[in-house]
C-alpha cells in the first residue's frame, strides 16, 4: 500500500517536472515572437487568475474590482520611473503598498456585503476609479503614459527580446502557484473555505471572517499589483482604457471560473484553454477588432454554469481523480463535508 502511494507521489512529481521543463525550454522551442508573447500573456493570466482565486475562489467573495490593483501597480511604478527615475524593480514596492491600502479600503467598504451586492459594490468602485483616471490630470487622463524605449537595460527592466520577460513571468507564476498551493493547505485556506460554505456558521465557530477575507484580499491585491508593473514594463504603454476597463479585466475573473474556482489547478487550466483560444479567435475573425473572443467567453461561461458550474477541473477529476489525487478539491476540511451540488 505504501509503495503504491510512493509511486503516485512520483507520478505527480514527474508531471510537475515535465511541465516545468517544457516551460523552461519554451523560448528555445518557439523562437518566433508571437508564440512567446502568447505564453507570456498566458502566464500573466495564470498569476492574475490565481491572485483572484485566493479571495474569489477560496472564500467565495466575487470581486469584480481586481483590475484596480493591476492598474495601481502599473501606474505607480511607471510614474515613479518617469518622474523620479526610480527603476521598476523598486517601483513595484510602492505599487504593492498602494494596492494593499486600496484593498483594505475596498474591503472595509464592501466586506459587509454578500453575494452579488459585493460583486457590484467592487465593480462600482472599479468603475469610479476608471472614470477618475480618465479625467485626472495627475495620471495624464485618458492619454496614459508611454515608457520611453531604451535598449537592453536590466536596471530599467527593459529588453529588446522577449526571453527575460518570459522568465520573469514564469518565475512569478511558479512562485504564486506554489504560494496558493501552500495557502490551500494552510489554516488560512481552511478558514476561507469555511467562509465560502457558510459565513455565519464560520463566524459562530469563532472565525473572524472579516479579518481573513481582508488578509486574502490584500494578498490578492499585492500579487495583482506586481503583475501590473510587469505588464507596464512589457507593453511599455499604459492607459485607463486598457487597464481599468471591465472588458480587459474579464479574463481575470473568467479564467478561474472556467478552470475551477477555489482550486490550485483551476486558474492554470482556465488560462491554458482560454488565452490561446482568445488569441486564435482574435487573429481569425478579428478584422476590425470585433471582440469575438469576448463573445466566446460569454458562451463558455453560460455553458459552464449550466453543465459544469464547478469548472473544468471537475471533468479532469472525474477522469483522473483516482489515479492522481488532485490538490485542492474545494471542499471544506473544517466542516468535514464534501458538497456534491
Amino acid at each position, binding site marked *: 500500500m505504501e509503495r503504491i502511494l510512493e509511486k503516485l507521489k512520483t507520478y505527480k512529481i514527474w508531471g510537475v517536472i515535465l511541465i516545468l521543463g517544457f516551460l523552461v525550454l519554451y523560448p528555445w522551442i518557439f523562437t518566433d515572437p508571437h508564440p512567446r508573447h502568447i505564453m507570456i500573456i498566458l502566464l500573466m493570466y495564470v498569476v492574475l487568475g490565481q491572485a483572484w482565486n485566493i479571495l474569489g475562489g477560496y472564500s467565495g467573495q466575487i470581486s469584480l474590482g481586481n483590475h484596480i490593483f493591476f492598474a495601481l501597480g502599473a501606474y505607480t511604478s511607471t510614474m515613479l520611473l518617469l518622474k523620479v527615475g526610480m527603476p521598476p524593480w523598486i517601483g513595484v514596492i510602492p505599487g504593492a503598498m498602494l494596492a494593499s491600502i486600496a484593498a483594505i479600503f475596498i474591503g472595509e467598504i464592501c466586506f459587509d456585503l454578500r453575494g*452579488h*451586492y459585493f460583486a457590484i*459594490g467592487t465593480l*462600482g468602485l472599479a468603475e469610479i476609479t476608471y*472614470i477618475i483616471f480618465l479625467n485626472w490630470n495627475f495620471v495624464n487622463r485618458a492619454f496614459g503614459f508611454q515608457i520611453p524605449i531604451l535598449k537592453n537595460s536590466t536596471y530599467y527592466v527593459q529588453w529588446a527580446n522577449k526571453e527575460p520577460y518570459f522568465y520573469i513571468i514564469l518565475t512569478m507564476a511558479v512562485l504564486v502557484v506554489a504560494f496558493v498551493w501552500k495557502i490551500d493547505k494552510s489554516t488560512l485556506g481552511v478558514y476561507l473555505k469555511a467562509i465560502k460554505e457558510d459565513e455565519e456558521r464560520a463566524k459562530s465557530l469563532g472565525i473572524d471572517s472579516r479579518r481573513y477575507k481582508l488578509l486574502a484580499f490584500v494578498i490578492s491585491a499585492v500579487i495583482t499589483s506586481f503583475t501590473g508593473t510587469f505588464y507596464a514594463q512589457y507593453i511599455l504603454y499604459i492607459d485607463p482604457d486598457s487597464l481599468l476597463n471591465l472588458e480587459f479585466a474579464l479574463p481575470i475573473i473568467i479564467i478561474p471560473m472556467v478552470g475551477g474556482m477555489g482550486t490550485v489547478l483551476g486558474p492554470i487550466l482556465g488560462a491554458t484553454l482560454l488565452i490561446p483560444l482568445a488569441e486564435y479567435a482574435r487573429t481569425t475573425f478579428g478584422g476590425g477588432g470585433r471582440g469575438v473572443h469576448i463573445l466566446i467567453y*460569454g*458562451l463558455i461561461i*453560460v455553458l459552464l454554469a449550466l453543465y459544469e*458550474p464547478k469548472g473544468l477541473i471537475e471533468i479532469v477529476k472525474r477522469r483522473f481523480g483516482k489515479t492522481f489525487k488532485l490538490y485542492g478539491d474545494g471542499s471544506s476540511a473544517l466542516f468535514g463535508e464534501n458538497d456534491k*451540488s
Partner: protein
Amino acid sequence: MISFPLLLQSSISGLLMGGIYALVAVGLSLIFGLMNIVNFAHGDYLMLAMYATFWANYLLGWDPLVTLPFVLFIWFFAGAATYKVVIRRILDAPMVAQMFCTFGLGLFLRYGAYFFWSADVRKVNDNLLSGILDLGNIYITKAELVAFFGSFAATALLFLFIKKTKLGKAIQATSQNKEAAMEMGIRTDKVNAIGWGIGIMCVGLGGVLLATYYPVHVYSGWMFSLISYISVALGGFGSFWGVYLGGMMIGVIENVLGTVFIPTFKMVFVYTTFIFILIYRPKGLFGKF
C-alpha cells in the same frame, strides 16, 4: 454657481430619464422576486430592442411606434425562451453560477451585437415623436415625455395585473413562497417563464421608447443592467413602487449632480449612491427584506 432654471431643467430631464430606468428596474425586480436570480443580461435585451427599433426604421422605414407592438410580442417570448433554455437549469445552482450565467448571457448578446453591427453609435431618424416642447425656460423633447408617460402607464398596468388578475396573484404567491405556491397547485415553472416574459417585455418597451431619442449603442446595454440593478437596490427588493421610485431617483441624481459638478462623472454619483445605500440602508429605501 448654477442657475435655478438650469437646475430645474436638469431635474426634469433626470426625472424623464428616470422613468425608463424605473420601468427597466421593475422588470428586473419582478424576475429577482420570483426566482432570486439577478439578470445581469437585463440591459442587453434593452440594447437589442433599441437595435430592433433602429433597423426597422432604417431598413423598412417603420416608425418606432409601429415597431413597438412587434417588439413587445417578440420580447415576451424571448424572455420566456431564455427562461426555458437557460435559467430553468440554474434555479437551484449556487449563487455564483447564477451570477456568472446571466453575466455570460449578457456578454454573449452584447458582443454578438458588436460583431454584427460594430460599435458605431446610431440614431433613429426623425419620427412621429420628434420635436421639442418649450415650457418657458425649460425644453423637453416630445419623445422623452412620451417615454416617461409610456413607462409610467406600463408600470401601472403591470401593477394592476399583478394585484388583480389570477395569474398576477400566482406570481405574487410564487415570489412569496415557492414551495407553498406549488402545493396550492400553482405551476411555478410556468409562472417563472411568464415572469421572465413580462420582465423582458418591460425592457423591450423601454428600449423602443428610449430609441426614439437616445443614441443606439452596443455598450448602453451594460450601463442599463447596472443602473437597473442599482435602482432596485436603492428602492428595495420586494417593493413594487419603491423600485419605481428608485429608478426615478437614480435618473434625477445622475442628471442633477452631473449638471452641478462634471457631466463625465455622472456614473460616479450613481455608484457612490449605490455604495452609500448598501452601507447605511442595505434593504433599500422602501424594501421589505
